[in-house]
């Protein structure tokens, strides 16, 4: 097999954009885990809702990308709010098993409700940018990918600023680091948990909206992403946000490289092989664990 440098660079760029979108999902999962100590197995479905919201908003906005993306983010944030207030709010801190059943159940219900109303037929989503792109030498990258990556980077910067410099965000880190100390300073855990779920849902909505024009939109699109995102959260060091971002970009790259040179079946398997190897070598993940570290 000969490796063409241009082809490799193309795969690398695609990998980075895909990795950044994975990172949005993993970071949201990490946020919810940090604050509530639960794994939200319906997280992938929030992404799917974001993608569908994008798909339905685009015709309304006359294919304008940004307003449709804003609508998709808002839509998933509302969905996150409803999921928290109707289901997750009832969970107590020591009910991890119940949280798995509730979120997994929700995931299955959401998939099938969406399939019932909108069928399982994959949708191709068109935007104002169509398949236009930017050419760098003989490499081509579509605007939808560039914008998706930039939107993810802006979201990370925003999230960093929120977690680092606002009481709203610091309270999330505080609960993740020491629940009792959080009560000591007067933090209301449920309010912070709700904020974290809504924020994480917004990140998922952004990822869904950005992925919609890049991949096919189906009710099942989020199903495998949750397992990948979960793997990333563990590889990145449970609760370490920059760790999850780095792991996600690495995953996007590896997936694209493997997918570019081998059959597609290897792509998904590779993530989990890597996760198993990493956890064998470093049981706590690649980076320092816990505390919802932001730097």
């Amino acid at each position: 097999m000969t490796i063409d440098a241009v082809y490799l660079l193309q795969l690398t760029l695609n990998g980075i954009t895909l990795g950044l979108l994975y990172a949005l999902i993993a970071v949201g999962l990490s946020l919810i885990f940090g604050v509530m100590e639960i794994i939200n197995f319906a997280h992938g479905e929030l992404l799917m809702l974001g993608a569908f919201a994008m798909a339905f908003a685009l015709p309304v906005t006359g294919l304008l990308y940004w307003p449709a993306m804003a609508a998709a983010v808002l839509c998933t944030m509302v969905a996150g709010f409803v999921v928290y207030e109707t289901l997750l709010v009832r969970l107590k801190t020591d009910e991890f098993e119940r949280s798995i059943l509730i979120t997994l159940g929700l995931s299955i219900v959401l998939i099938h409700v969406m399939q019932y109303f909108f069928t399982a037929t994959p949708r191709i989503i068109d935007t104002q940018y169509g398949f236009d792109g930017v050419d760098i030498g003989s490499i081509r990258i579509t605007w939808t990918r560039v914008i998706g990556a930039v939107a993810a980077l802006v979201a990370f910067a925003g999230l960093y600023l929120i977690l680092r410099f606002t009481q709203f965000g610091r309270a999330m880190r505080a609960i993740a680091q020491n629940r009792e100390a959080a009560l000591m300073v007067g933090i209301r855990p449920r309010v912070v948990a709700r904020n974290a779920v809504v924020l994480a849902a917004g990140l998922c909505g952004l990822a869904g909206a950005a992925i919609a024009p890049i991949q096919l939109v189906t009710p099942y699109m989020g199903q495998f992403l949750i397992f990948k995102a979960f793997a990333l959260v563990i590889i990145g060091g449970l609760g370490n946000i920059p760790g999850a971002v780095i792991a996600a970009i690495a995953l996007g790259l590896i997936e694209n490289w493997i997918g570019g040179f081998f059959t597609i079946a290897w792509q998904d398997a590779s993530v989990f092989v890597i996760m198993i190897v990493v956890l064998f070598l470093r049981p706590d993940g690649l980076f320092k664990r816990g505390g919802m570290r932001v730097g």
Partner: protein
Amino acid sequence: MTTAPALELVTVTAGYGDNPIVREFSARLAPGSITTLIGGNGAGKSTLLRAIYGTNRMFGGQIVFQGETIERLPPWERLKRGIGFVPQGRCNFPAMSVAENLKMGCYTLPAAKHAVAIDRVMASFPMLRAKAKIDAGNLSGGEQQILEMAMVLLVEPSLLLLDEPSLGLSPKMQGDVFATVQRIAALGVTVLIVEQNVRGALLISDRALVMEQGRLFMEGPAKEVRTDPRIRQAYLGGNIQQTAA
């Protein structure tokens, strides 16, 4: 007690899940006093402090703070009313800097008051200013204890509940912590303290409450309690006068 009590506990029964640990406990704390709560392991001392702050389950009784019954209020509402609680063990945010920990201590204060409050506690505890950028988890045990008290003092509570503040500290650091408690009380703050170093705590206290199996066993001025033969036998194991000297 002639003045209205800062805190009044009326037949408080509290615990966790379905298990009451503290049973029908009644006591009154005078404003600005230091009271030590003494008792063996599992007597319910920490459970009582948690019940006063609202982080466990109340089965019955009343908690009256500054004339208001508060037993149905969540912890953050009690904090807003002036009850500060420093739980046992390390109770800070280890992956945040000292400055960020203090910011979190201001959580229930309006943003405009944060800087003034942080300046005030940093003036009281200069170590916090010197180590403002260091992660709390990298401070020594004694420094972490001071930080935790400072985090609660930011909101200027009128009642401070301290659970084992000197646990795991060197004798020198224990002395510093007790001196700090005395300084806090001198400002008019009522202090209720649970301490494994009963001797040290009694020496700085005005009164003592002795708890056995969740119930009030004895109460009185700290001086009397620390010379009571039963207390010396059970909790002091030696001559208190010698230690004081």
